[in-house]
């Protein structure tokens, strides 16, 4: 074993890779070799730190110095100053949005301080492509424990008592699901990992797969032991190439060490895992659709019961859990169910990973105990709304969820509270919207998504979402009528009650929740023919404020339809008949004289 005085962790998650972290890493390796430092400083590729908008991210140990937005041309300064002279490069350190000072160690950064990492514990800490690093952090010891000390029923009991619920959307108790499958009779059973992360704005599953793939493999093997299965499948989106590659490496390494395969730990337990790629169909995140897709057919859902725990893949008893759910299993086995159950709220135990995005300063991946308020997440961790704008809503649960208004910022986030206010946990996408976002437009956006992704098998979803989308489009175009609102509500109820699968049953949620909390915006579109946020093109008019216009004529020269006229040094005027509302004039005006309303 070589001793290195320093480890430099460079993020190799999708976010940082897109910001060229690979170039930074290569430059670093090159310069360290040139300076003869490659024997004392080790460069480690690691998974997502969660702070994606600051990528590429680099952390230097043992100090724990946190560098962000490192570019290849910064590497020389880091090597010269930090590695040779021991002086951290101040300008690359993180600084809190509202403070002057820069923070040296990453444990002290606000963004990380409020977090509690369980599922993400290893992300950004180990090299996901080296199985030994996972083992060094107690990896595969949970599997060792269940095989040596526990009966399958004891494993199920621990998971049940921990209170772990499905992290993929529905929140079904994981232990109960395992028990059903364990009690089902069958010569062959299967464990399936749902990594078909499709909710727009959610990317925690990808980050776990990229940053800590072995945690998922270990948990699947534990599940296999608990229900009596010896084959697992991971169904992962083809759009996640890095995750697929890391999984393949991880499976290969686990097989080489005999942690997957025959007779694991000489306990007579066999378990192996294969990867199946999705092919771009959102509905395949629904469990029965996912199973038909693994079977090689069109990914259409089927009615339940029978539940997959009774008749799943190829008709055999099958459990399907999401990536984040699995990532919680090894820590529960290692630390005990009491430890896990001590976190969270009465009915929602443990932590939850959220993907923070949209109009928020710190976008990225965070993990907090269940029951944390939305306000803590958005203001303390997320650093608030950029450009001093006003918070309007937070959208959770993707196309199945809803929008939470400012009045409810102090709600404690857990499964039941979110459902009670008309949203849902979903997989944990949390998108923040400010005063510039139109809620009718957002509702239309989600309906367009579900309508497009509806598999077409059942009419309420296929036809109902189409009709809802038509009504919403009409409203955003200024052609809405008062009856449209009642029609939307009637349709929503029918679709919720009559659809075959979760996709359809939850599709109306974005509309219902915006109608509930932002009805005034719908009414402004319908009665006043105005879009208060200034988003819906058809309802906008552009105007030049005479008192601000200096008469420079720049707007007129940039207008594609010659709709602006006037004399130099006198206020210009827009002809609303000719105006196509492209916004070119507003963008070009140097005196803020052009407004839209």
């Amino acid at each position: 074993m070589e001793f290195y005085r320093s480890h430099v962790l460079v993020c190799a998650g999708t976010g940082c890779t897109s910001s060229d972290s690979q170039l930074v890493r290569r430059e670093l390796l090159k310069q360290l070799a040139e300076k003869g430092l490659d024997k004392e400083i080790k460069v480690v590729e690691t998974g997502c730190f969660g702070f994606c908008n600051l990528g590429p991210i680099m952390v230097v140990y043992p100090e724990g110095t946190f560098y962000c937005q490192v570019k290849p041309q910064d590497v020389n300064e880091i090597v010269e100053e930090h590695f040779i002279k021991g002086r951290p490069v101040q300008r690359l350190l993180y600084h809190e949005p509202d403070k002057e000072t820069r923070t040296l160690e990453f444990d002290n950064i606000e963004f990380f301080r409020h977090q509690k990492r369980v599922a993400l514990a290893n992300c950004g800490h180990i090299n996901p492509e080296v199985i030994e690093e996972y083992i060094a952090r107690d990896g595969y010891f949970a599997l060792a424990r269940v095989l040596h000390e526990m009966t399958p029923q004891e494993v199920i009991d621990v998971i049940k008592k921990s209170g772990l619920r499905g992290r993929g959307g529905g929140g079904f108790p994981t232990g109960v699901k395992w028990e059903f499958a364990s009690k089902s009779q069958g010569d062959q059973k299967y464990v399936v990992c749902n990594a078909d992360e499709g909710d727009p704005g959610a990317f925690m599953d990808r980050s776990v797969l990229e940053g800590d793939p072995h945690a998922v493999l270990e948990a699947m093997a534990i599940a296999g032991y608990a229900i009596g299965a010896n084959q697992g499948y991971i169904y992962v989106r083809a759009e996640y190439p890095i995750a697929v590659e890391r999984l393949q490496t991880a499976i290969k390494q686990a097989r080489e060490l005999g942690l997957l395969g025959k007779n694991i730990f000489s306990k007579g337990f066999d378990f192996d895992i294969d990867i199946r790629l999705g092919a771009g169909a959102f509905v395949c995140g629904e469990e029965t659709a996912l199973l038909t897709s693994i079977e090689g057919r069109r990914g259409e859902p089927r009615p339940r019961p029978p539940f997959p725990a009774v008749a799943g893949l190829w008709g055999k008893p099958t459990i399907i859990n999401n990536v984040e759910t699995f990532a919680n299993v090894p820590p529960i086995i290692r630390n005990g169910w009491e430890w896990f159950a001590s976190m969270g709220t009465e009915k929602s135990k443990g932590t939850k990973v959220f993907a923070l995005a949209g109009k928020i300063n710190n976008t990225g991946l965070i993990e907090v105990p269940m029951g944390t308020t939305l306000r803590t997440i958005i203001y303390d961790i997320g650093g608030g709304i950029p450009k001093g704008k006003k918070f309007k809503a937070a959208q959770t649960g993707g196309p199945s969820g809803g929008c939470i208004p400012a009045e409810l910022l102090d709600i404690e986030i857990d499964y039941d509270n979110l459902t009670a206010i008309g949203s849902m946990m979903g997989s944990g996408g949390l998108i923040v919207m400010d005063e510039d976002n139109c809620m009718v437009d957002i509702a239309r956006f989600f309906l367009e998504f579900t309508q497009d992704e509806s598999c077409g098998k059942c009419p309420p979803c296929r036809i109902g979402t189409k009709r809802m989308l038509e009504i919403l489009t009409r409203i955003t175009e200024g052609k809405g009528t008062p009856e449209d609102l009642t029609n939307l509500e009637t349709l929503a109820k029918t679709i919720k009650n009559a659809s075959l699968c979760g996709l359809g049953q939850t599709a109306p949620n974005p509309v219902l929740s915006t109608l509930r909390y932002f009805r005034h915006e719908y009414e402004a579109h319908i009665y006043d023919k105005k879009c208060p946020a200034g988003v819906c093109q058809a309802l906008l008019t552009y105007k030049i404020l005479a008192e601000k216009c200096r008469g420079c004529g720049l707007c007129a020269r940039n207008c594609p339809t010659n709709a602006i006229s006037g004399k130099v040094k006198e206020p210009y005027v827009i002809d609303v008949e000719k105006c196509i509302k492209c916004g070119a004039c507003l963008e070009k005006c140097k005196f803020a004289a052009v407004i839209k309303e």
Partner: protein
Amino acid sequence: MRSLEELKAIKEKAEKTISVRENTGAPTITVAMGTCGISNGAREVLNAVIEELNTRGLANIHVTQTGCPGLCHKEPIVTITVPGKNPYMYGKVTPENVKKIIVQHIVNNQPVTEWLVNLEE
């Protein structure tokens, strides 16, 4: 994987590799690497530290650097901090005597008083 022992052996070996990233309260050896330190041979001292830790298989030690502590005439300066105890500062360290310092101070827990920086001097 045949047994728990086999897994434990892998863990023990791998733990040493990543211990530098853990906040374990390990003793820290800090080498002052300001311009004065480097020109007085701090680089060679640092190399000797790493070499010695490697030879002795001492993994759970943090080695870090700092800038000039302001005692330029005492450079190269090495500070050893054992958690819960006052830091000890050694002056005019050479690659040879740093090895002795590691053995005496870290392995045997006996600071080498003769080479300590005496501020009253």
